[in-house]
């Protein structure tokens, strides 16, 4: 605990704590909309923002926030209005962002080492003012992510239903994009622009190995992100490793530990689940119209809950029982 007497360690821990909470909170919505790599894209674009700050001599954090927000809004507009080439348009933005960043940094006469502190984080050099900015922005992001959870969930889950429920889908979509951009720049000093997406996505992927509901996934992801961030800073202080990389590797280790548990749970659920019904057109030919009552005893009524594999068959569901397909028919079961 003697490390806590150093101011820079305390600042690093506070920064890590809030980054670890905010990144998975936004990440949950990105993963839900299957935009897991959006954080990565915004991170690339923010590189240009940082370089712009270095070139103009203003705060790189401020310019990074501005450029990242613009980039995120453009990505969302491309996605929302997008036809087929949406991912290509995103790729153009990503590479434009990072190339522009490298170019501008060179023009500013700064070395690659300066840019590196933003690409991979430098939490131990974070200043007192930076900590306050991080805490403030993270609190705003977490408040929005948790307070608007029902609305954001509904919009991401089923856009058409959300529109008919009277929600302004476009505003909520843009809000998530702006939140993602702000989070990326908040996490820039902690884990760096190239690794920030990991802190947004990996805790969510870990949490959903074992969760069944959205709210528990959101809460668990935030807890995992916080533990990984604090743990990463602590570990890196003792073994003198890069904090950003340590945080991400710790989060990944959590995923590796949770995966077998999740795989086992999913296997159990799959066995208990009836097959999805095919359309009537796809009924296999050659199944005759015959009718044979089954003499076997049934200790229960076949139903989706009884545990026997369910096979949809035309207008009803058969259940596999002792290697035969049984169809409920009034008082008895038919052989199909």
């Amino acid at each position, binding site marked *: 605990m003697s490390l806590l007497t150093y101011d820079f360690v305390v600042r690093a821990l506070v920064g890590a704590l809030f980054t670890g909470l905010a990144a998975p909170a936004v990440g949950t919505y990105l993963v839900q909309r299957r935009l897991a790599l959006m954080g990565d894209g915004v991170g690339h674009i923010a590189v240009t923002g940082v370089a712009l700050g270095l070139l103009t001599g203003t705060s790189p954090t401020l310019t990074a926030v501005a450029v990242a927000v613009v980039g995120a809004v453009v990505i969302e507009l491309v996605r929302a209005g997008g036809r087929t080439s949406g991912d290509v348009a995103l790729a153009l933005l990503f590479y434009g962002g990072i190339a522009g960043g490298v170019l501008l940094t060179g023009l500013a006469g700064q070395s690659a080492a300066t840019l590196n502190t933003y690409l991979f984080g430098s939490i131990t050099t974070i200043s007192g003012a930076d900590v306050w900015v991080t805490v403030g922005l993270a609190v705003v992001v977490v408040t929005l992510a948790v307070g608007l959870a029902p609305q954001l969930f509904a919009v991401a889950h089923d856009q058409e239903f959300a529109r008919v*429920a009277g929600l302004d889908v476009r505003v909520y979509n843009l809000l998530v994009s702006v939140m993602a951009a702000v989070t990326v720049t908040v996490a820039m000093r902690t884990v760096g622009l190239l690794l920030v997406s990991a802190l947004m996505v990996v805790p969510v992927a870990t949490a*959903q190995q074992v969760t069944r509901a959205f709210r528990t996934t959101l809460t668990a992801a935030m807890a995992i992100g916080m533990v990984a961030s604090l743990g990463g800073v602590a570990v890196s202080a003792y073994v003198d490793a890069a904090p950003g990389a340590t945080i991400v590797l710790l989060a990944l280790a959590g995923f590796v530990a949770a995966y077998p548990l999740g795989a086992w749970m999913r296997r159990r659920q799959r066995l208990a689940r009836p097959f999805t019904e095919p359309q009537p057109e796809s009924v296999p030919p050659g199944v005759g119209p015959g009718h044979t009552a089954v003499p076997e005893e049934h200790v229960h009524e076949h139903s989706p809950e009884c545990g026997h594999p369910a096979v949809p068959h035309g207008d009803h569901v058969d259940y596999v029982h002792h290697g035969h397909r049984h169809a409920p028919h009034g008082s008895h079961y038919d052989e199909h």
Partner: protein
Amino acid sequence: MLVNQPPGAVLSVRDGAVELGGRPVLRGIDLDVGPGEVLAVLGANGSGKSTLVRSTMGLVPTCRGEVRLFGTSLPRFRDWRRVGFVPQRVTAGSGVPASVREVVASGRLSRRRPFLPARRADRDAVEDAIAAVDLSGKARDSVSTLSGGQQQRVLIARALAGVPDLLVLDEPTAGVDVESQETFAAALRAILLRGATVVLVAHELGPLHELVDRTVVMRDGRIAYDGPPLAAFTDAEPAHRHDHHHDDLTRSASAHHPTVTAPLDPTGAQGEHR
């Protein structure tokens, strides 16, 4: 254009037309649905039946004519709490698990304000809606682990949770097992007792046929029939037969209706259909 607007109509369309990608999909639609009516919109694939209800929900823009909900023109309509919508089932799940209760709770959002927690009435309505579709035992389960029929029931419960005056359903019975269809029919019966209006798009009515009191048959983007339910639909359910099965399923009841999906007029002119 507003001359023939019946004052009490819950949903009305006057001279509605929809174009998708420059192609006319709906033309010359005139439709009024009165309070308490149960309207089934039938028709072949591509006949425009789904587009018709989606345009009345504002999900597809109309290129001419007017849609009114509860007497208010659609662009100015804000009272979405009176409308419940069941979209066609999305098969691709979302990236994060969601429980049955969470999805159904979305149905209360038209009655909730941002940042405020759900009130007692909200929670009760959600539990009632889950019970109405017979899924109370699965309220905490992840939706993705349910069967297709159960997932469809979740979507119906979500619309019921808002206690709507108008319930609009897009193919609620497509690919749904018989048990789920019957649960669904019972849930519909309950909201009809409350005096709600129902518009449903269907391929086959199944156990719902006895609830329907008016059908509209769509053909080539026009209303080809508007009147009482046709015998071909209502008699399609033999009670207890042994020689049932696959022949009559593949040749579904819709074969009795005009199901021609001829190409649309290339000019988009309001031509004669014979």
